[in-house]
């Protein structure tokens, strides 16, 4: 390996604003990924933003089924009325179109329905808690 030639190569790649480079011939192979441009550096924001959802623990393992996200901002209700049983429980089998919860916004009760059939693995929001757009509310194992 010729360090000087290598340096010239990398200098050239940088000048050409190349992010990744792979080369192979009979004698050698080389692969370079250059810092800065390829991967986005972490944004300035490192501290957790005090979202309304801050108190809610994030979803567990990625293989524990798929996540259902809140399609709107509002208040999450697990049952149709206080004191009545929830629409679904952990372990419930659900089918497409079945109501899973209500998100109330501006006095409107929006029934949130299952998009696929499966089994409820986890509920990620407490009854009566606010949710924001895109916030995970259920974890459902398809099938």
């Amino acid at each position, binding site marked *: 390996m010729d360090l000087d030639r290598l340096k010239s190569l990398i200098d050239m790649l940088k000048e050409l604003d190349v992010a990744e480079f792979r080369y192979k011939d009979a004698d050698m192979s080389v692969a370079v990924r250059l810092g*800065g441009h390829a991967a*986005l*550096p*972490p*944004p*300035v*924001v490192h*501290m957790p*933003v*005090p*979202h*309304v959802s801050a108190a809610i623990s994030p979803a567990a393992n990625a293989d524990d089924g798929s996540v259902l996200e809140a399609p*709107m*901002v*509002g*208040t999450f209700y697990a049952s149709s009325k206080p004191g009545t049983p929830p629409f679904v429980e952990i372990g419930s089998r659900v089918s497409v179109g079945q109501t899973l919860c209500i998100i109330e*916004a*501006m006095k*409107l009760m929006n029934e949130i329905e299952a998009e696929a059939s499966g089994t409820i693995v986890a509920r990620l929001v407490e009854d009566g808690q*606010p*949710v*924001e*757009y*895109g*916030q995970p509310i259920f974890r459902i194992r398809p099938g």
Partner: protein
Amino acid sequence: MFKKILVANRGEIALRVIRSCRELGIQTVAVFSEADRHSLHVRFADEAVCIGPAPAMKSYLHQPSVLAAAEVTDADAVHPGYGFLAENAEFAAAVRASGRAFIGPSVDHLRMFGDKLLAKRAAKEAGLPMLSGSDGEAATLAEARAAADVVGFPVILKAAGGGGGKGMRIVEDGATLDKVFELCKAEAKAAFGTGRVFVERYLRTPRHVEVQVAGDGQGGAIYLGTRDCSLQRRHQKIVEEAPAPGLSDKLALEIQESAARLVRNVGYQTVATVEYLVEDDRFFFLEVNPRIQVEHPVTEETSGVDLVALQIKLAAGEKLDIPQESIKPVGHAIEIRVNAEDPWTFMPSPGRITGYHEPGGPGVRVDSVAHEGASIPPYYDSMVAKLIVRGRDREHAIRKLVWAMDEFIVEGIKTTIPVQRELVTSEEFRDVRHYTRWVDEWLAARSPKE
């Protein structure tokens, strides 16, 4: 006073509102689209709620989401910033119907100033000088022809629902008017929901002069100085200054008093801008912007008044505690809107900022949420920062501005700084020989192929 304000906006104006709230001891809620999750306005608010995906129609413009965010965070007031829902009477009504304060004017005033014909009527009643024209709607081609014949061609045909440079067409002669009249009405109906149009005298080389005013809805109204925003590209302001240069003391006083009179006359409560065209020492009412404006900092720098704090206090029902006599603008301030655009084609240049340094030192102010590593998303307006300088006089402010522009580093995206640098160092700008269409003509002459 309010306990918690939801800021229904993004970017620098959201941060600007948060800054005044912090000083006033008011909690803040930011709302953000998925594209803005890492924006600094989100970081600096006490709470933040994601209200939807990136497109504005599904987030910042989506009223139910904004209202629901106010509800779940228990905010007792909503500040709309500028743009988005700031002048939407329906939204203001919905905010108020939900038991919250809308930090802006009454629904009636939003409707009045959102309709150019109603606004003109109110201005006329307050005795403001008007451009001659159809004196109300030109409902038929015959009415438009009659008005144009009196005024003399070219005339300008404006949609009642337009404003801010939108919904208007210059008509050179009668034959053209015959041809475009119905088309204009149809376009206006499609764009603004009302096909009402009117005819106005067309000025060739006017300057855009505006007055910052504030009213408390209880008979109190003050003016806080003039601004000149005549450097415009296609009706979009790109450089603004305070006070408006080249006005005689008499004219400056008249124009400001007339603006305050209009606000007082209609019982307006909160801050607003009354816009005029000025040509040959005469001024004519143009429109009213019933909100905080992008260029408000130049007035803050010369008057010393925090306009956002004033706006919040007035919305909370406080009386205007600033006597007119106490407003004594000092020095000269200029703002440039640093946009992520190609400086010569004005094509948007969204992307990630790879290097960033804001100018500083005496008399330099930057309002921005930009930083190295931040992205300018393609979904919204292209503003990166507002650069504001304050000098002893206009010449000093221009010198300071030029150096501040040279010191402003924004790498990774293109910005409009190079074209603004040429504009503010031009002889025309220095000698105040520019007018509202001058930038367009200058750009056309500069590159004839554009």
